[in-house]
C-alpha cells in the first residue's frame, strides 16, 4: 500500500517537474557534505497529499551543497518517529543525522507535519517541530521543515521558502520574440507568469516586504519603470521620462526607489520618493552612471560609472553627495550588489577578458572570483547570504546558475526553452 502511494507520488512529482520551466542540476558540491537521511514521512490513514514532503526536503538540503542525503533504497527501515529509530542501523550506513516525521490532516484546511531531527552519533533528538499549512501547500510545508533543519545544523537562517524572479525570451516565428517575467519558488517549482510582452522586459527587483516588484518594460516602445503588486496584480507606471529609465531598486525601508534616468543628457542616478513621486538627482556627471544598489543602512548607494575611463563601482552618500571609488582590482567591475551584512560586494568582474562573478571583501579589499564560466552576469544574493544566483551561457542558451558565497557549491537551473536571464532572489517571505 505504502509503496503504491510512493510510486503515485513519484509520478505526480515527475509530472510537476516536467511542467516547471527550471530544472536543477548540481555540478559541483562541497568536498565533505554532511551525510543525512530524510526518511519518507508517515501518513495518517486516508490522507492523500499531492507531494512527497520528505523528498522535497531531501532536494532542498542537497541543493544547499552542504548535505549529502542518503538514497531511499539504502535505508534499512522507515521509522516515523524517534522511538522507532535504531541508531545502530543508521550508524552502519554512515549518516550523521536522521529526519523522521509524519503528516496529518486536521480538518479540511490544515496539513500538519510533526518531525524530529536525530543526531546519530550522540543518539539524541536535537530538534522537534510541528508545522501546519493549508492543504494545498505541501511544498511550502516541506520548505519550512528544510529551513528549520538547515538552521539547526548550520546556524544560518534557511532560505528555502524564498522565491525567484527572472525574465525569459522565447523566439517565435516571424522574427518575433516573446518576453515573460516569471516568478517561481527558489527550487524552480510553482512557476507563474507575472507579465507577458512582445517588447523587452528588464531588471526585475523585489520590494523588501516581498509583496511588490518593479521592473523595466518597453511595452510603450520605450523603457519605463513599472511596479506590480503580487497579491492584487495591480501594475503602476512609475516613470516614463525621455531616454533611459532603468535599474530600479527599492530602498531597504521600501519607501524610496533608486533608478537610472537620462532625461537631462547622460545617464545619472536618481532617487524617487514612492509616496510623493518626487525625484532627487543623486549623481551628475557626463559619464555613464548606472546600476545603483542600496547599502543596508539606506544612507548611501553604490553604482557603476565609467567616469574614471573604465567601469568601476563608486559609492555616493545621499546626504552630502560625496562620491568614493570602491573597486581598484580589475579593469572592469560592474552591476554590484551589497551583501546583507554590508561587508562585501558581489559584482561582475572582468579577468583576462572573461566576465566572472566575484565577491569583494570591503574590509580587506580582497576580490575572490566565484565562477569559472565566462559571460556571467546579473548576480543576485540570497537573503541569508549563503548563495547567489547569476545568469550565464550554457549550450548556447541563457541559463541561471547558483554558487555559494565561498565558491564551493555550484548548480545550474537550465530552462527547458528560451533564454532566461536577470534572476532576482526574493527577501525572506512571511
Amino acid at each position: 500500500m505504502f509503496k503504491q502511494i510512493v510510486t503515485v507520488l513519484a509520478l505526480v512529482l515527475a509530472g510537476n517537474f516536467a511542467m516547471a520551466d527550471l530544472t536543477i542540476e548540481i555540478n559541483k558540491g562541497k568536498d565533505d557534505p554532511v551525510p543525512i537521511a530524510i526518511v519518507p514521512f508517515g501518513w495518517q490513514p486516508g490522507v492523500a497529499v499531492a507531494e512527497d514532503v520528505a523528498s522535497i526536503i531531501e532536494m532542498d538540503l542537497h541543493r544547499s551543497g552542504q548535505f549529502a542525503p542518503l538514497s531511499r533504497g539504502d535505508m534499512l527501515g522507515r521509522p516515523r518517529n524517534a522511538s522507532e529509530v535504531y541508531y545502530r542501523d543508521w550508524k552502519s550506513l554512515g549518516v550523521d543525522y536522521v529526519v523522521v516525521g509524519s503528516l496529518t490532516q486536521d480538518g479540511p484546511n490544515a496539513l500538519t507535519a510533526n518531525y524530529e531531527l536525530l543526531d546519530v552519533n550522540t543518539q539524541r533528538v536535537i530538534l522537534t517541530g510541528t508545522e501546519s499549512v493549508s492543504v494545498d501547500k505541501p511544498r511550502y510545508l516541506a520548505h519550512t521543515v528544510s529551513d528549520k533543519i538547515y538552521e539547526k545544523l548550520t546556524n544560518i537562517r534557511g532560505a528555502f521558502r524564498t522565491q525567484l524572479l527572472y525574465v525569459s525570451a522565447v523566439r517565435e516565428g516571424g522574427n518575433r520574440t516573446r518576453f515573460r517575467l516569471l516568478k517561481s519558488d527558489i527550487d524552480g517549482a510553482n512557476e507563474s507568469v507575472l507579465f507577458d510582452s512582445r517588447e523587452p522586459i528588464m531588471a526585475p527587483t523585489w520590494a523588501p516586504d516581498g509583496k511588490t516588484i518593479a521592473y523595466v518594460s518597453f511595452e510603450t516602445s520605450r523603457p519605463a519603470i513599472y511596479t506590480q503588486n503580487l497579491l492584487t496584480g495591480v501594475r503602476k507606471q512609475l516613470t516614463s521620462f525621455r531616454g533611459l529609465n532603468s535599474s530600479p531598486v527599492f530602498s531597504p525601508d521600501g519607501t524610496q526607489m533608486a533608478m537610472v534616468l537620462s532625461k537631462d543628457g547622460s545617464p545619472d542616478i536618481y532617487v524617487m520618493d514612492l509616496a510623493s513621486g518626487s525625484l532627487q538627482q543623486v549623481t551628475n556627471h557626463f559619464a555613464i552612471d548606472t546600476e545603483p544598489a542600496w547599502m543596508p543602512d539606506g544612507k548611501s548607494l553604490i553604482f557603476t560609472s565609467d567616469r574614471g575611463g573604465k567601469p568601476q563601482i563608486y559609492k555616493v552618500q545621499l546626504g552630502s553627495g560625496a562620491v568614493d571609488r570602491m573597486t581598484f582590482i580589475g579593469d572592469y567591475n560592474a552591476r554590484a550588489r551589497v551583501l546583507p551584512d554590508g561587508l562585501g560586494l558581489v559584482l561582475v568582474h572582468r579577468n583576462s577578458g572573461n566576465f566572472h562573478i566575484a565577491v569583494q571583501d570591503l574590509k580587506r579589499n580582497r576580490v575572490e572570483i566565484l565562477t569559472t564560466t565566462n559571460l556571467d552576469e546579473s548576480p543576485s544574493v540570497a537573503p541569508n547570504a549563503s548563495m547567489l544566483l547569476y545568469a550565464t551561457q550554457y549550450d548556447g542558451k541563457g541559463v541561471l546558475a547558483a554558487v555559494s558565497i565561498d565558491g564551493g557549491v555550484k548548480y545550474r537551473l537550465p530552462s527547458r526553452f528560451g533564454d532566461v536571464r536577470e534572476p532576482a532572489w526574493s527577501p525572506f517571505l512571511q
Partner: protein
Amino acid sequence: MQFTKPLFLLLSAACLSAQLWAQAPVVDMNSPRAGAESNRSMQGEIYQQLQQLRQEMMTLRGIVEEQEHQISQLKQQGLDRYIDLDRRLGSLTTGAAGAVVGSSSTVANAAVDAGSDAGITGEAAVAAVTGADVVNPPAVSAVPAVASNGNESSDYTDAYALVRSGNYDQAITSFLAYVERYPSGRYTPNAWYWLGELYVAVKPQNLKASTDAFQYLLSKYPDHDKVPAAMYKLGTVYFLNGNKQKSQELLTHVIDRYGSTGNSAVNKSREFLRKNF
C-alpha cells in the same frame, strides 16, 4: 551586464561619426557654400576635440583615483611598519631588564596562584567534563635551559615554529620553558594545548603527560578558545589509552556543548565517534 554594452556602442558610434565628420573638410573655396562648409567643419572639429577632452579627462580621473588609493595604502603600510618597529625596539629594551629580575620568585608565586585559582573556579568544570581531579599544573621541574629572548610573544612564536618544522621534542622543551617562565602569560593556555598535542606526536608517546596538559588547560582556562579543541583531543587521548567510555563521554559532551557554535572540534568529534565506536 546591463552596464550597457548598447550604451557603450552608442557612445563609441557617436565618437566615430564625429571623426568621420571631422575628416571631411576638403573644401572648394570657390563654391558659394564654402563659408557654411568651413563653419560646419569647424563645429565638427570642436565637437571632436570636446569628445577627446572628455575621454582624456576620464582617463586622468581614473589615474588620479588609482594613485590616491595607492597613496593611502602606502601611508597605512608606512604606519604599520613604524608601529611594528616601535614595538620590537620597545620589547628589546624592556625585555633585557625583565629577564634579569624575572625567573624564580615570580614563577613560584604564579604556580601557587595557578593551583588555588583552579581549585576555586575550575574544579567543577573538570569534574563534570573530564572526571579527573587533577588541578595542579603538571610538573615542569626538569626543564633544560632554553634560550629566551625575554619576550613572551616571540618566545611563543619560536616554540610554535618548532612545531611547524616538526621538531616535536625540542618544541616540548620550549613550551615547558614557556609555561614555567610565563605561568599566566597571554599564550600560556595555547602552550598547554600544544604540550598536550606534542606528547602524543612524539615517539614514544607520553599519554599521561598529554592527559595532564589537556586537563590542566580545561580546569584552569574553562572559557578559553582552545577548550573545545582540547576536549576533542583529550577524548582521543583517552581512546588511545584504552579508556573508551571516557572518550565517548567527552566527545559527546563536545558535540552537545559546542554543537551550535560551528566549532571545528564538533565535526572532528563526530567523525571520531563515527569511525571508532
